[in-house]
């Protein structure tokens, strides 16, 4: 239908997100500093402790730094996804969201554009982080840098749609701290990002179960396998399914009457 108009919207939203990103240069750095601290400080302490287990997709013993890298890539995507939901709450309070959503284009398209914009900006940060990983001897295969791309995009979309869903539910900026405590941290810590699931199972069956139903675990595993040029089919299905569900929920949350009522 209005393909040209859709493209204009995509371009406009991409440009706006890009400009916002440029204006918050510290955001790029802070997005890198956080996982780097984990990689350089946290992981070093566990170097010897966890360096002795072989789990797929790894073919041999790995350092903890190598294990933790895919999880930290997803951490970047997680924080960015949530941060963008924060920005949407902010947009809503400032009224600019209303301007965006009043456009005659389908709302689903506009929100999808928003997700794409966030995903693209996050990818730049993830690749910068993987590049820094090479400096500390975390060296996935070069082909893996290519095969990991679709996995990263899907993960970014999943986390972005979760963020979008949350922003459709949060009424005030102040509530965002709650998102940190109740969404980001549990999602990150109760996943396979920091420890393999068999390690979680050693401590408690409950924790293992929670980690297993956490979609973030499956996103991390999808990225981990893809980084080593392998496909984890179950992780792909779960990540895709979760993305679809939250995308629908987010769109439903942004139905016009709701927006109209809130403003």
């Amino acid at each position, binding site marked *: 239908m209005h393909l040209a108009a859709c493209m204009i919207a995509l371009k406009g939203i991409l440009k706006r997100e890009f400009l916002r990103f440029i204006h918050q240069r510290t955001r790029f750095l802070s997005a890198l500093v956080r996982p780097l601290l984990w990689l350089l400080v946290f992981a070093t302490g566990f*170097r*010897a402790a966890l*360096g002795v287990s072989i789990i797929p997709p790894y*073919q*041999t*013993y*790995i350092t903890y730094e190598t294990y933790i890298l895919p999880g930290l890539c997803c951490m970047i995507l997680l924080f960015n996804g949530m941060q963008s939901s924060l920005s949407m709450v902010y947009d809503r309070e400032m009224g600019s969201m209303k301007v965006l959503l009043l456009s005659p284009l389908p709302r689903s398209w506009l929100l999808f554009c928003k997700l794409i914009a966030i995903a693209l900006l996050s990818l730049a940060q993830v690749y910068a982080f993987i590049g820094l990983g090479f400096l500390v001897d975390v060296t996935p295969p070069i082909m893996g840098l290519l095969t990991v791309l679709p996995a990263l995009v899907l993960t970014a979309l999943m986390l972005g749609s979760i963020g979008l869903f949350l922003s459709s539910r949060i009424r005030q900026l102040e509530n965002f701290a709650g998102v940190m405590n109740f969404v980001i941290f549990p999602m990150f810590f109760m996943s396979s990002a920091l420890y393999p699931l068999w390690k979680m199972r050693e401590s408690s069956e409950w924790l293992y179960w929670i980690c297993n139903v956490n979609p973030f675990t499956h996103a991390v595993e999808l990225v981990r396998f893809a980084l080593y040029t392998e496909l984890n089919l179950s992780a792909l299905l779960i990540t895709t399914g979760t993305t679809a569900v939250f995308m629908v929920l987010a769109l439903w949350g942004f139905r016009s009457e709701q927006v109209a009522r809130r403003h």
Partner: protein
Amino acid sequence: MPKPPFLKTLLIGALLASPMTQAATAYVSNEKDNTLSVIDLETLEVTDTIDVGERPRGIALSKDHSKLFICASDSDTVQVMDLATQRIIANLPSGEDPEQFALHPDNRRLYIANEDDALVTVVDTDTHEVLAQIDVGVEPEGMAVSPDGRWAVNTSETTSMLHWIDTETHELVDNTLVDQRPRHVEFSHDGSVLWASSEIGGTVSIIDVDSRQISQKLSFRIRGIHPDKIQPVGVKLSADGRYAFVALGPANHVAVVDARSHEILDYLLVGRRVWHMEFTPDQKYLLTTNGVSGDVSVIDVDAMKVTKSIKVGRYPWGIVTLD
């Protein structure tokens, strides 16, 4: 595995000459399982497990690669396996508790370290006779014969010495004191230098063969690993003379050393309690036996990376490879 053309020619020649027409293979002795694991070096998978005598440790190939000698320590014998049929065809009178041994370039004399008896036993592998028994230090372990066949060198763990045995007279001619608990000795391919690992001392001594004096001592340090855990055992030198690899036991790492400058280049993470090592026939890969984790790690020598670990039996100890 792509091979350089000249190696390929050699390989084809060897295959035509040998009665077997199989791919390159590794044999690994599993100390606690009383078995050998057979690894196909193309697929890097275990294809067979063969029962042998009790507590197999050191293993070595005959020079024509037709036989495999196996130290069956608790059976107090060295077994001879015919590789074509994979059957034990003889038990050599090795003396008690044989642990490591070395075959003389004449392909007949086998020098065997008898850990419990402070002896080195020399056995003729053709006639199965004991040619000599030589008194050495307490707990003899490592054994090597120089490429020119002149020297047999034994290490005694408790005496912390290398014992130089003249292979003509079978007499102990000289001793070299090294750091505590020498485990393994390895001659350079030109026979001018001897590398000796000291497990408790945590060092590798590089010894000038002419003077039988230590010319340099290497120590190792790995970030995040306690120095007590760094216990050098196996040593392997690449055929091109570029690298020496030192297995660091419970440190779970293999040290990569520049064999010329003696600079330590890298430490590679492998399985737990890495013990002995062997190159694949094309020298592209180095395989390590990891006792506690029960696997064999594969090091890509060009990339200097560990690419895979292959599960074998319990407590893999010795390893040989052949085309």
